[in-house]
Each structure stands twice: as C-alpha cells, then as structure tokens.
C-alpha cells in the first residue's frame, strides 16, 4: 500500500493537491472549497469506491479504498469521504444500491443501538455521527427480532442535533423515532454492528496514520527552517530526539493501520485474528495521535498553536478521529476481554497468527 501505487490513490492525491490544499483551505473562512472538492471526488467515483458497479458505485477493491483513506488522512480532508465510503460499503453488504451525494453511517459508536420495530420503522439515538448534517442519506444498521438489518434513511425524517468534534468537523446526534426507511434489507450473517465498528475503526486508523505522516513532514521542515539560539532548531539534540519519537509514532500508526486494512481486505470472515488487527490499529493509532501530535506541536512552538497555521488541521482531526467507531478505551477493554476469554496460553498463538 505504498503511496501512489494504484490509480485510485493517484487520482485522489491529484484532486486533494488541487482542491484540498491545507493552507488554501485554512485561509478560506467561507468554506467555498468544499463544493468543488466534493464534486471532483464524486466525478472520479471515489466516495462510492466500495460499491460495486451494479449498485451504483465504482467497484474499487477494499485495499484500494483503504489506501485512499490513508491519502485522505495525509491531507486531513474534511468532507465526508470516509463516511460515504463506509455507508456505501454497508449498503452494498445487503445489496442495497447507493444514491449519489454525501452519506454517513448510523450508529457510529459501538455503544449506540438502533432498533427495527415490528412495523418496519426504525428507532433509536446515535451520538457522535460524523457529518450527519451534511449527509443526503444515512446508511443505518439496525437490530430487530429477525436479526440485523441495513437500511437507507432520509435524514429529513430524523432529528439531528448538530455538534462539532474537537477538530471542528460536524459530529451530530441523530434521533430516529419510528422512521420509515427508503429501503431496507436483512444483513448477511457476516455483518453486524461489531463488523461495522471494526471497518469504521480501521478507516479512522488509516486517516490518523495519514495525518501523522503529514505532521512529521511539516515538523521536520519547520525544524530545518526555524532558527533559535543562532542555529536551526533541528540541530538541537532534544529536538532531534523528539522528532525521532514522532517518526516512530507515525511509523507505528501506519504499520498498525495498513496491517489491519490488509487483514480485512484478505479475510474470509471477521475472526479473532481480524479482530486483533482492527482493534489494535484503532488503539495504537489513537495513542499515536496523542503522543505524535503532542510532539508536532512542541516542535512548532507558539506558531503551531495559532489558527492561521495548518498544523491543527492534522493534530486536532487526528485526536477527534480517536472517538469515532469506538474509542481506544472501548477497544482495549473488548480486546482485553477477548484475550482473557481465550486464556493465557492462547495469547501468543493469537499474536503470532499472521
């Protein structure tokens, strides 16, 4: 999954470079960059990468889609690309076609639950739904007497309480009160809420890893420009060692995220090994977001703390992404329980399974 080794990523990077330049976006107080960016991404078929041709998408592989999300993280892209990809993927699991336009998934936290009532309507509350306010449709995973269903929902039929995450992106509470879905179908056995959260968690992990790559780049560049005490700050050993640690955190995040993406892309089912990969990625990337982002800010000093500087576009988003699809604390508890249930002598075989 190296950079630009596939056409999907190449296309995306070109669009991001042209229309999602962080400095340009940061200077644009009106948000006028959003519409052209989304239009270009849509024309290239990227938001529906994970939707097969016959369901209205562009039918890219899971692996290509994951690489695209990593690239989106490198540009700290703040349009619902990941969310629409996940929604399209979820709908496609139940062979539901994806409509055009922005989408997001409901729920976006493993602790929220939407139910499907006996009359086929949907009820429940989902907090922290990314870009709900911008979405033209929701892909909803709901639980009912007959098991798990996947539904396409019109957001105007729901109540949306807007909110912002720590990275200033929309992160809203969605309430469904006996909402009639646009379309609904039973989910295949292989897909449940945990599957959705693991997919979402890996998507966020790749975005965090991408943001860390960029934080490392701009921090290294800045340290080679900024002069203090009559020399470049990159020549101070304390700064060098901080940057070395940032490189380590960035590398660890990228390794964990790409490994999990590779595991899912090649998995026959979401077994314990895939669970280990995906949960670990979310845990480790969230930790790296904190440690690595902290170093990036330390290297930049006060300038990196200003709203004019682009650093916060990466650092705050990486921190915000920790919360989506299960925080690192949530996954750590669940992974710890899984390990305990399997028993001490089964820990190493699990770790060494791939």
């Amino acid at each position, binding site marked *: *999954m*190296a*950079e630009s080794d596939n056409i999907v990523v190449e296309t995306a990077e070109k669009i991001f470079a042209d229309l999602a330049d962080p400095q340009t976006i940061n200077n644009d107080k009106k948000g006028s960059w959003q519409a052209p960016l989304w239009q270009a991404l849509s024309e290239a078929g990227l938001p529906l990468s994970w939707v097969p041709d016959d369901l209205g998408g562009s039918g890219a592989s899971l692996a290509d889609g994951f690489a695209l999300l990593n690239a989106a993280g*490198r540009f700290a892209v703040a349009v619902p690309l990941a969310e629409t990809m996940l929604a399209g993927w979820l709908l496609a699991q139940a062979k539901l076609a994806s409509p055009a336009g922005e989408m997001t998934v409901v729920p976006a936290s493993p602790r929220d639950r939407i139910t499907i009532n006996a009359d086929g309507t949907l009820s429940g509350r989902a907090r922290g739904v990314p870009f709900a306010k911008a979405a033209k449709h929701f892909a909803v995973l709901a639980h009912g007497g007959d098991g798990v269903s996947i539904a396409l929902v019109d957001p105007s039929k729901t109540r949306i309480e807007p909110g912002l995450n720590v990275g200033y992106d929309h992160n809203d509470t969605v309430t469904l009160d006996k909402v009639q879905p646009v379309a609904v179908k039973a989910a295949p056995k292989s897909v449940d809420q945990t599957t959705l959260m693991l997919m979402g968690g890996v998507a966020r992990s790749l975005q965090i890893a991408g943001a*860390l*790559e960029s934080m*490392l*780049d701009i921090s*290294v560049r800045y*340290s*080679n420009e900024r002069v203090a005490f009559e020399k470049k700050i*990159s*020549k101070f*050993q304390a700064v*060098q*060692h901080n*940057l*070395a*640690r940032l*490189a*380590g955190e*960035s*590398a*660890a995040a*990228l*390794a*964990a995220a*790409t*490994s999990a*993406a*590779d*595991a899912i892309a*090649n998995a026959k089912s979401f077994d314990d090994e895939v669970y*280990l*990969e995906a*949960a*670990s*990625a979310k*845990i*480790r990337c969230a*930790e790296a977001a904190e440690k690595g982002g902290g170093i990036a800010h330390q290297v930049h000093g006060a300038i990196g703390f200003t709203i004019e500087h682009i650093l916060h576009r990466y650092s705050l988003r990486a921190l915000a992404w920790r919360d989506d699809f299960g925080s*690192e604390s949530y*996954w*750590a*508890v*669940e*992974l*710890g*329980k899984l*390990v*305990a*249930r399997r*028993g*001490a*002598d089964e*820990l*190493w075989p699990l*770790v*060494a399974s*791939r």
Partner: protein
Amino acid sequence: MTAALRFDPIRLPEKCEQLRKEVRAFLAEEAARGTFDTSKPNREDTDVPEFCRRVGERGWIGMTWPKKYGGQERSFLERYVVTEEMRVANAPTRRFFVADRQSGPVLLKYAPEHIKMDILPRICKGEVCFAIGMSEPNSGSDLFAAKTRATKTEGGYLINGTKIWTSSAHIADYMIAIFRTSPPTKENRRHGLTQFLVKMKQPGIKVNPIGQITGQYEFNEVVFTDHFIPDDHVLGEVDGAWKQATSELAYERSGPERFLETYYVLTELVRAVGPDPDTRSAEGIGRLVAQLHTMRRMSVSVAGMLQAGKEPVVEASIVKDIGTVWEQQLPHRVRDLAAFVEETATNRETLERQLDFAIKTAPKLTIQGGTTEVLRGIIARGLGLR
C-alpha cells in the same frame, strides 16, 4: 514524498506456519524432558549445550545460510518464526543466538573461504558460541573512540587493551571485535578501526566476569595482552570497519528479541486475571496486546525487507527504540494491573517471581545493542536532521 517510513504488511507464507508447528512441538518436547522451564525467564547465564546441539540437528541455526556452509537456504521469515517461538518459550538459546543472528552473517560476508568452511558449519550444529567485542571502558555508545590496539607484526597482529560489557565472553569460542589499526584522520574520526575474528580461550586473553544487578554474571571484561591474531582473521577492510557495521545493525536491532524480552509477565498476568477480568485489567491487557501486535507487525515487516535484500537500518532502529522502551515498561505496567489480583490466583507466586526478575532486567533493555539515544540519533539522521 513524505519522510514517514512505511512498514508494508508482510504476511508469513504458509510454509512458515508448518515450521512454527514443528518448532512448538520440539520446544514442548524439550520442556517436557526438563531441558528448561518455560515459566522461567530466559536467564542469559543459562547455557545448555545439548539443547543447542539438538536445535542444530533440526537445521534451525544458520538456516538462511548457503547449504555448503551447513545452512538450509531458508528465508528470513522462516528464521523469524523460529526466533520468536524460542523467545516466547523462554528456551536457552544463549549459546547460538548471537552467532546465528549476526556473527555468522558477518563471517559470510567478510571471512576467507577456509574460515567460513571451518566455523559456519559448527555454528549450524549449535557447537560454537560467539561474543561481540565492541564496547571498551571509555568507549560504549561512542564506538569510534575504541582504543584497543592491533599492532602489525609478522604474519598477523598483536592485540593490547580491554573490551568490556561483553556478553557470553566467559563461554564464547569466538569473538568478532573491532580494534584500532590506525589513528583516526582529521577528515574521518571513524577511520582506523578494523574488524577481527578472535579465537577465545587462547593465550593473551583473560575474561573477568562482572556481576549484574539481576544477580547474574552474564557480561565480562576481556583483557588482551599481546594476543596474536593471524592475518587471515581480519574481516573486511583494514581501517574500514565503519563501512561494515551498518548492515549488521539491521539484523541486530529489528528482531523479536527486541520486544519480547519480558513478554512472559504478560502471559502470566492474563493467567492471573482469569477468563472474566474486571474493566481495569481488561483495558490494560488490551492496550498492551495492541502495542505488542503493532511492534510485531513492524518487526516482521523488517524481516521482509531483509529478505528482499534491503538494509533497513532506520526502520530497525525504530523497531528497537519502540520495542525496548515497551519491554522495559511492561513489567511495571503488569505490576500495576496485577495489584488487585486475588491472593488465591494459582500462579500468583510465579507471577511475582517473574516480575521480580523482569523489573531487575528492565534497565538494561534500552542500553544493550545500541542505546535509545543512539537509535534516535540514527532515526534523526534518517529524517535529514543531521
């Protein structure tokens, strides 16, 4: 182009899994016959020659080397599997581990043919032990300050000076050491050191054991007094050792031994908390397992780079930096999480005994084989900062 380092998600091929089963069965058999105790940390002063010979019989030492030198021509990924399984089982690999990991590869690259034919097959049989002679009393991390002299004489060199902190020197048959053959130059302070193969247990070499805070006597002072080394024991270029050190470091610094040194306390913690842990224990274990998994994936990825013929020195430094800091903190985190383990937990005594040893071991992990500070310097250079 970004400065970030990529660790591609290498998967172990199918044949590795078959090998893993064989290694596990072998180790279970050895533990059952009492060769070693899997619950006892891999005490580095433990030397079990007959175990090493049996590992050699299986073809698991020098397994990546050419067949004509006793190797199996297998891949680095297969070697990786053997190494990690031995480490996790607390197997006594001391005698062959250094030779297998780095001394053998150095000989393969730089030794004359007759020496390769003599020594490499014996390494593969598990018969010979190697030490590494780098540090000196006033030259540790600053390798190129080494002063121990190799003075040219008829047919070879006379060695005078002292190496220190030399692991296994007391049992070693050979040492690969760097000695000063010329003074450094103004342009290059790294110039003037030469790598030599030293035959231990010879006149002019005195090995003095040094006690460690763990209670072990595992490293040594090695004093050379007019010790003679023949010309054909020079490894590589005279005065040019600094050009040769780098690839060795990638082997030395990226393996599973760089994060599994205290792993046993994590296994024992999982046993102690039982199948239904409280939230605090579950979260703590989950985080540790996620961190462990990530490092292993990075380490396997470096093995893949070595297999592809690359020299991933910066990547290896990152693995060792993150890995050794983690394995150093692990006993302390496990101690935190074990604070409320029931008095009645059946393995409580084992866990406490292991923690006692791991906590004493921990300080050395970020020092041996390249300190954290040296590693971060290498990473910083890789980032273009120096």
